[in-house]
């Protein structure tokens, strides 16, 4: 009799647990599939921007204003500042219905140098993780001025694998990014360039990269040697889908003026933006 009671008790407990598990599984499955569907069908394709060293998250305000001139649907602007304690401060917002917002990520530690770039790439990953959580986007485009391009490269090689199945990076545009710092010759590879080349196989293969150099004379934009910008080909060429180098000269071709350069604004419209329609002429 006692044995029988025990058997019934075990059966009852197992049955209750099974039903409970089925119920919880069902709930989770519905929630998960809904989230997957939302992301898969999402139209959102942000342009994520990182400024160069010494600049803040406000660095591209002028550029965004310029890009939004005469736009039927102006791109909204969200700015994130990552503090030294890895906290995120948001300003601005993404307008509902905006398919192609600009998201600028700046850092409290905005100093130059490889160790800082590594630190900034790690901090960018924190910001990116938060963006991934808040917004359902399945692809994005990247824009980096100066060291910003290096931070993106470091991020793509060392952190992006975690998101690969869900999020694609379609385009990366770097403006005056010193892939070999101040070195005048490719024979002297900096530690950073060596690391980038060593890990280049981790770069996404469906990515199109545009490496833009400014030139005040034949060798430099006043700060970064053209050779150093062009060193990006040793990182990207042959690994990503397309790799294009562009040199810009003339007015505003100095390193720090590049984000306001008319040619570059036009290049951004042409190569980076996909939802960009000018207002109908009235």
């Amino acid at each position, binding site marked *: 009799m006692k044995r029988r009671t025990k058997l019934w008790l075990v059966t009852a407990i197992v049955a209750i647990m099974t039903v409970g*598990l089925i119920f*919880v*599984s069902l709930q*989770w*499955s*519905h929630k998960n*599939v809904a989230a*997957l*569907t939302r992301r*898969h069908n999402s139209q959102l394709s942000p342009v994520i921007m990182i400024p160069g060293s010494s600049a803040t998250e406000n660095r591209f305000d002028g550029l965004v204003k310029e890009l939004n001139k005469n736009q039927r649907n102006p791109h909204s602007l969200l700015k994130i500042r990552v503090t030294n304690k890895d906290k995120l401060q948001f300003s601005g917002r993404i307008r509902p219905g905006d398919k192609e917002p600009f998201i600028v990520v700046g850092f409290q530690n905005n100093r130059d140098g490889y160790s800082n770039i590594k630190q900034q790439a790690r901090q960018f990953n924190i910001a990116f993780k938060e963006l991934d959580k808040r917004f359902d986007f399945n692809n994005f485009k990247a824009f980096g001025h100066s060291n910003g391009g290096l931070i993106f490269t470091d991020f793509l090689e060392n952190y992006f694998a975690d998101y690969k199945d869900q999020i694609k990076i379609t385009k990366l545009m770097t403006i005056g990014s010193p892939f070999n710092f101040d070195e005048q010759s490719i024979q002297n590879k900096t530690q950073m360039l060596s690391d980038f080349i060593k890990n280049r196989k981790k770069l996404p293969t469906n990515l199109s990269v545009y490496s833009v150099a400014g030139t005040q004379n034949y060798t430099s934009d006043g700060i970064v040697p053209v050779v150093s910008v062009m060193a990006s080909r040793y990182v990207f060429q042959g690994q990503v889908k397309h790799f294009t180098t562009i040199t810009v000269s003339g007015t505003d071709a100095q390193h720090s003026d590049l984000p306001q350069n008319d040619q570059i604004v036009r290049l951004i419209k042409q190569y980076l933006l996909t939802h960009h329609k000018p207002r109908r002429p009235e």
Partner: protein
Amino acid sequence: MMNRLLAISTRFYKSRVTRIVRDTLSILFPIMLLGSFAEVLKFAFLSPSGFIATLFSVTKWLPFVHPLSQLAGVISRCTIDMIGIYGAYGAAYSTVKEYGKKSAAVAGAVGILSFLMISYQTGSRGRLVFNPTLMGQGLLIALIVGYVCGRVIVTFERNQLSGPYQVIRPLLIILLLSVLANLFISFLRSPQVQTFIFSITPHPVQGNAFPYVIGMGLLTDLLSWLAIGGPYTASPTFTDPPALANLNHALKAGTAYNAPFKYTATTLFHSFANFGGNGVILALIIAIFIFSKRKKFLTVARWSTFPAIFNNNYAMMLGVPILYNPILLIPFLLAPLVNMCVVALFLALNWIPAAVYPVPSGTPGPLIGFIGTNGNWLVLVLGIVLIAIDVLLYAPFVKLYDRLNENAGDKHETTD
């Protein structure tokens, strides 16, 4: 027919090699049982992608989740991922013991030595690196190594010397053989040979046709019966191209019906042929509970239930044992085959959607298909019916195995 099978099996069961294998596996059982508990805890309960962890967000609220997971990792690494060492030890020990020699304990140590020598990777800049594949999935090789060591010791030991000194001569022979084996494996691992092997192995272009999936599934089961890793890994990855295409189609269409690839490793093999691990072990456990009267099997089944719920079948493979057991091989292949065919029929008739959505690792048997179809009730019912069918498939073999163990003479273990 069953009687003839019984007669053949009894003869087989009494052979020396069989006894050695059985003894070895029973040495491994307790170690691997604890290992499989640790593995289940790590992957289903404490990893963010695990079943229990996902459903109850364990990793968010449980304190010390990271060190706990590391601890479970230490246990599973040193047990299941090192199964080769224990196998070599056990086989050498059991062989020498079977031939009635006293040097069995030393032989075990020699077995370990030989296996370590074979799996040591030279050319790793002097660091202590052993071949992880051989360690974790090379149980068959380990058993052979142990057996050969045992036989060499039995044949060449000198009886006039006493104790451990007896094994010096056979030890020399074994060292020589092991070095040769190591050289051979190094040769196999060299880039040129790898390229050659890669170039001659057939690479299926269409990895999703029905016969191909059935064939690969059965091959996986057969190899796991031999304790070698099969073509399909233990759990679905959801990153192979057909699975991604299915998922994308389902997300776009909002339904899992009419998936572009209906018959894939995920939709058939992983979702319906692996309840409790390769060979629908969950059904065998239930069959033992219902039909077996032998205390040993009941104990093994009871201990193995927890890991088997989360699709870990190590304990059952070694405890019953299923490994190298010709009687249980038949249902071990038949049950998954029946499941895959029935599900394929249901899919062909469009009665059920294909399992396309991602499932957390360690999801219990029938729930894999249920979650994979985003909660299709017919799929759940079908899964339970399939388990019932599999239990009936296993039943005659469990009864036969019960009788065989009586015939084989250890009656004292039987209950009631």
